[in-house]
């Protein structure tokens, strides 16, 4: 089967899935509670896949993703509420602003590595949040209220599909290979003539831009953008998803986003237990399976084929 044909098949599968779910929503078989969770799953997938591009594929440990989400959430809201622009412009604007910010702060900070980068991105996320908190134009500490609900399952689902396809194709391109080589060994990558700074900043910028998309969708679903939604706890939530799924596995991130959103929904009545379970999961996972559920493998139709005893040894990425 050719590559293009497979892409088309996957796209068709997405559209069929969308049609079925949207149909169930319209027939009220999926009620508001599960619709909310579907939207949350999609937003979490966008966030996790984009963070995975930075943390998992490029190996730059960033824990300030919520900051970029906040930029998207607020700028999107300014565009629709204050400037009365259409929603698609708000999404693109949110993405552009978050991506630009990612570029500007990525350029100097990505010279750091490991722990230092982690703590610097955490700090940057907080600086973004505190700055927003101090802008009265967007509501300051009480948050930006009165945002219309433009997000719905359709918007969120297709944004997710585009994100996943974009990042998947990026990973499989020359640029993506360069990013992975930086993760594997930065010094060796540099010796092979890869402009490591360029690719690190590229991955950071794209990851930030998609976090901006997720932020815009988020604020236009919940009517409000509030600084307290974008603390580093939110960044840790996203990080948990990425780590659980596996650093360097897109299908892992998707699975973990679905899983954890369900866990959160199930624990909605016991909010105090949610973070305890999250934290224990992180610790136990690191002790017994530090590569996450999927490691850096992807699930594809081939695996199902192999399970059926069909094709022998596909070109799975070995590690």
């Amino acid at each position, binding site marked *: 089967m050719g590559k293009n044909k497979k892409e088309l098949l996957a796209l068709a599968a997405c559209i069929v899935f969308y049609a079925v779910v949207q149909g169930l929503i319209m027939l009220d078989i999926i009620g508001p509670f599960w619709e909310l969770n579907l939207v949350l799953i999609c937003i979490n997938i966008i966030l996790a896949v984009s963070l995975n591009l930075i943390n998992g594929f490029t190996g730059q*440990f960033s*824990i300030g993703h919520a900051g970029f989400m906040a930029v998207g959430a607020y700028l999107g809201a300014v565009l629709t509420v204050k400037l009365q622009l259409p929603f698609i412009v708000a999404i693109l604007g949110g993405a552009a602003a978050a991506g630009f910010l990612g570029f500007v702060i990525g350029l*100097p*900070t990505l*010279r*750091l590595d*490991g*722990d*230092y980068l*982690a*703590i*610097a991105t*955490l*700090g*940057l996320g*907080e*600086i973004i949040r*505190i*700055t927003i*908190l*101090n802008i009265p134009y967007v509501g300051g500490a009480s948050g930006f209220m009165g945002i219309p609900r433009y997000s719905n399952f359709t918007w969120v689902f297709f944004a997710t599909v585009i994100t996943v396809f974009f990042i998947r194709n990026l990973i499989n391109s020359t640029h993506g290979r360069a990013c992975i080589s930086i993760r594997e060994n930065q*010094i060796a990558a540099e010796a092979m003539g890869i402009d490591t700074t360029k690719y690190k900043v590229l991955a950071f910028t794209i990851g930030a831009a998609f976090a901006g998309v997720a932020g815009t969708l988020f604020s236009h679903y919940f009517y409000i953008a509030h600084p307290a939604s974008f603390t580093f706890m939110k960044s*840790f939530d996203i*990080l948990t998803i990425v*780590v659980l799924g596996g*650093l360097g596995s897109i299908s892992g991130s998707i699975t973990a986003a679905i899983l954890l959103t369900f866990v959160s929904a199930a624990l909605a009545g016991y909010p*105090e*237990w949610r*973070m*305890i379970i*999250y*934290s*224990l*999961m*992180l*610790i136990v996972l*690191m*002790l017994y399976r*530090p590569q996450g559920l999927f490691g850096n493998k992807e699930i594809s139709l081939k695996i199902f084929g192999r399970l059926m005893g069909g094709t022998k040894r596909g070109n799975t990425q070995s590690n």
Partner: protein
Amino acid sequence: MDFSFTQQFIQQLINGISLGSIYALIALGYTMVYGIIKLINFAHGDIYMVGAYVAFFATTALKLSFFPALLVSMVVAAVVGMTIERLAYRPLRKAPKIAILITAIGVSLLLEYGGMLLVTPQPRTFPALFESQVFNFGNIVVNSQQVIILAISVVLMIILTYVVQRTKIGKAMRAVSFDTDAARLMGIDVDRVISITFAIGSALAAAAGMLVGVYYNSIDPLMGIMPGLKAFVAAVLGGIGVIPGAMLGGIIMGIIEAMVSGFISSTFRDAAAFAILIIILLFKPSGLLGKNVREKV
């Protein structure tokens, strides 16, 4: 106008130094642990919270006075710190750094939310352990809490310096921090040294937690997050792994924070800490007192 500016400046300087000595106590723990196993112990700020709560229960339930409570809280925190190291970090000694960092984040969240479950999320009023006295020097105000915080911090730092520089275990700690493998070859029990490092760092953090309780009269389960991060910034500022650097960094952080909240706006004081971090990392990543070490290939 000019006169009152000077006055306010000195007042903020005093507030900053007492706050800074608390940051310095926490930063010492970060710097010692980082110096030995190259781990940002995210849970360190939460040990400080644990210390504050132990002191709270020691003074309210057990009716202990200041010094016994301080001792109890330091001992309990030391045990907690050693337990965390034993259960969560030691099995990962050979794992990639990212795995240990994520574990540390997990431990930190566990302490915060486990704490919330155990002691309820509501802030508690820390009992007043002293007659609060206020000393006036002209228009500058110094209260007895500030004096006590500074005195206890200085005493603890002197003890720590003595332990690290003059005792056998201090020598072992320095050796492990310099070259773990060589130290092991020389017959040093590295695991034990790491354990003791965690114990000492945690005890200092607990002392800081109790002092903050005395200073602000209020404690809550999430109180460790911000001071923990700021103390880390302080450790980086002074040069992580360098003990005098942590003290210097802590004091500088405290002063900058007091100045920002005094002269600009208190909402920006947390942002200021992170801005300092980024500036330091960009221009002098080894910190003020650190030496530049080129990473080995």
